[in-house]
């Protein structure tokens, strides 16, 4: 009997020993917080939330077991701030891509000619601030008006980066043309949630105005009036946002610059 008991105990011990090796990694509990601000004004650079917005890409350089670090991507909030509370402690390269002059610029043969991304240690709560040059800046002018289920808003679009500066930074990348500076479309996005933008819009009401060539240039700095489509039912609450983009893609996507989302009540 005792023999059996011992052998059972032994087995148990063996089993428990083998499972005793503890996981030697701490939970990814560090936090990176950041802001994306306009180099010229210090204002936050507003963005869409999602694939066509500002993307934050972390690459853990202190992790050497994979030769080339994996990309750890997440997206900026619409206000131009970002936060991730589940990051492993370590040394990172942080780059962001959005509707602004790319921080990492490579020329036509793939050589990096400028790298303004950040190399930082992430531990505890690490805060970073990226100063960027947004292509465009959009502002509301006055309050939107509502009539017959249509919202009419006034928007002012200005350049966040001068054509000369844009050219100086982009031309060395190859394939430059002045057409890249053209503003191709201005939109008034409508949604029933505050996260309104390119990935969250109600296509029944959203308006898009397209501009050929550099025809928008005359409207830069002017007040442009834009009205929603269709008829939003009375009593609804909608959120609107204006967005515009230039004819230049960062990371192969032509991204919009935005103004802040505004709440509009459609009266009964």
């Amino acid at each position, binding site marked *: 009997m005792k023999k059996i008991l011992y052998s059972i105990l032994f087995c148990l011990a063996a089993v428990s020993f083998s499972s005793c090796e503890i996981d030697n990694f701490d939970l990814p509990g560090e936090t990176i917080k950041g802001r994306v601000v306009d180099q010229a004004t210090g204002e936050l650079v507003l963005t869409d939330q999602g694939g066509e917005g500002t993307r934050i890409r972390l690459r853990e350089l202190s992790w050497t077991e994979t030769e080339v670090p994996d990309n750890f991507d997440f997206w900026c909030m619409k206000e131009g701030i970002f936060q991730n509370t589940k990051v492993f402690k370590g040394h990172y390269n942080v780059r962001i891509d959005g509707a602004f002059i790319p921080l990492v610029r490579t020329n036509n043969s793939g050589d990096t000619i400028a790298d303004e991304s950040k190399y930082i240690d992430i531990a505890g709560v690490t805060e970073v601030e990226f100063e960027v040059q947004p292509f465009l800046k959009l502002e509301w002018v006055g309050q939107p008006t509502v009539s017959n289920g249509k919202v009419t808003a006034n928007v002012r679009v200005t350049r966040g980066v001068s054509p000369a500066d844009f050219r100086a930074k982009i031309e060395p990348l*190859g394939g430059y043309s002045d057409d890249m500076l053209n503003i191709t479309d201005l939109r008034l996005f409508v949604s029933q949630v505050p996260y309104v933008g390119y990935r969250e819009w109600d296509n*029944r009401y959203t308006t898009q105005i397209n501009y050929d060539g550099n025809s928008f240039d005359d409207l830069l700095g002017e007040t442009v009036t834009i009205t929603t489509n*269709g008829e939003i039912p009375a009593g609804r609450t909608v959120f609107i946002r204006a967005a515009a983009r230039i004819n230049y893609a960062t990371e192969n996507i032509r991204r919009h610059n935005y103004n802040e989302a505004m709440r509009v009540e459609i009266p009964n």
Partner: protein
Amino acid sequence: MKLKYLILILMAFSSAIISCNDYLEIPPMNVVQDKDLFTDATGMSVYMSRMYSQMPFEDFKYSPARQFFDDWLVTPGANSGESLGRDAGTAMTSEGWARNGAYWERAFNLLRDANRLLETLPEYQANFNESDYNHFIGEAYFARAMVFYALAKRYGGVPLVTEVLKYPDNPAEDLEIPRSTEEETWDQVLADFDMAIANLSESSPKRGYANKFVAYGFKSEAMLFAGSVAKYNNITGFGQKTDVRVIGFDANSAAAASKKYFREAYNASREIMKSGKYSLYKKKWSPNDKEAQFQNMVDMFFDVSSPENIYIKEYSYPDLAHGYDSYNIPRQLMGGNGYSAGNCPTLDFVELFDGFEKNEDGTIKVFDDNGKYIMYDNVTDIFANAEPRLRAYVILPGDVFKGEVIEIRRGIFTGDASNGIDPLRVVNGGSPDYSISGPSNYNQVDAYRAVGDFAGQKLLFLSQNGNTHETVELPDGTVMNAGGKSGPFTSDGTAAMTGFAVRKWLNPNMPQSLVLEARSEQHFVLMRYAEILLNVAEAAQELLLAGETAPAGDDFKQIAFDAIQEIRERAGADLLTSVTELELEIIRKERKKELAFAHKTLWDIRRWRTQHSEMLNGSTQTDGAYYKGLYPFYSSTTGKYFFDAGLDEGRRRFRLNEQEYYLLIPGGEVSKSPVIDQQPGR
């Protein structure tokens, strides 16, 4: 005790002896050896079967949602705007999302088989006569070319595995191969097709095998793809790990590459044309006889001996069958598995064709000059003179299939029609709204809900689904279901949801009891002469636009013109009036019509890079766009039919980013390899 030791010693000793004997080192008897396989054509057919069963053919077992070798819900056209269906109807932004995953691993399995054949067969060359030997070598190159082509059109640059990777002889790290540039990948496709062409026999030694002209055919298709990407692609970038331009072309070499590939496509197509071995199928065709032209185009997809077939994939029950009939049969002929109408042609597709009245913008004319519906005595009248090819591909409302009138009717309008009928898509007494903000389903309109101008009187009747109908008593006392036997219905997608059903490929002779999953065995035409004519026309036109000169004896414009005319004549379409009329847009449109529902348009609109940017009913697919349907209604007071054209009731949204022309490399492959790059920027 002594005995025990003795036995132990003996055992130890004997085991030492046994393990030394060479004659026991024999290969396992239950595994077929190279020497047995590579003996003759019979042995080779085993190897060939294995290779062919892995070929990336887009056939009755291919759908973007489920990738290759999966016949469930195969509805060719439903990811490229030719059709919509209950289970499909989105742009292809990835592949294998529903199951099976992306086409990657399977590609490398077949590459290994092909490379192994190339490396091993030379050791057994003595077993074969020269032409057989060359043919099998050609088959290996053909398989490799097809795999690299399938990969290149999905991913751009891929790892060019051109030899058998020996593992565990070599450590895995040494066998890692990074992605090449997109240009190198297309060059490899070209080189492999050329080697296949050089080695393959002029005719297939066995049914189903490739031959020289099959290779020419796919080469012309692949090179057209490469030339188009080099010319129209805007997306490029460098791999993060390797700094290799894994997608897109270098701006400095793109134009030259594009011309080179278009010329290869042109020459390959011309070789097939000059061989005189193939011609358009016209067994039942006769001039000015639309019925004969229609029947001819129906039959051509079922005639195994068609002179138009360059390459077909055959099926046979029960070993290798598919379910095309089951999934795509019109609702009223539904088979036992309960599937139907998976592939409903869009009005946008139908509007490409000739033979019915159109507005100036090319859309179908359904309203008269006063904005009232045009009334037709019979539901078939609107398409009475339609191009025969359209009728051969699409079952139009009231057409006959399998001896039965296919009843496609959205509903019945019971209101007064003496002053004409106003547009139906009106909500709350507003003005008719056919834009995206208008009503999506007819159960939202005033005439149905009895509001607005129709306050208190419901004048529109619809059917909920195939079993639940609203009914209307007609003036003669008979009772009619609101919806047709084949739909469309308010909330049942297994019906003609766009107002059309597909006819192409549906077996007209299959008894309804056999319309089941995994029961169909009609062949799929992978490559036919009509495509070669379209390839030659497009390549010639592109070369002309690039300022290239034609080879001696050829006139680009004339060859392109003749090719299009030949196809139009056979199809019963309106002919071009003069050679000056021919433009790239016309060639592309012809292609969309002729090669519909064959997985071809799917890739055409991707290689032209038009899918994301083309205006489609007011939007582009970058922003999200919708296709249209044509909904027949019966006016009970007049006994006539009218048609409402507008956005698809299901509002299936097609959305494709420019980036998504290049599918993502499977994430697991990227993270486990030190050299495989993800698509730049993603």
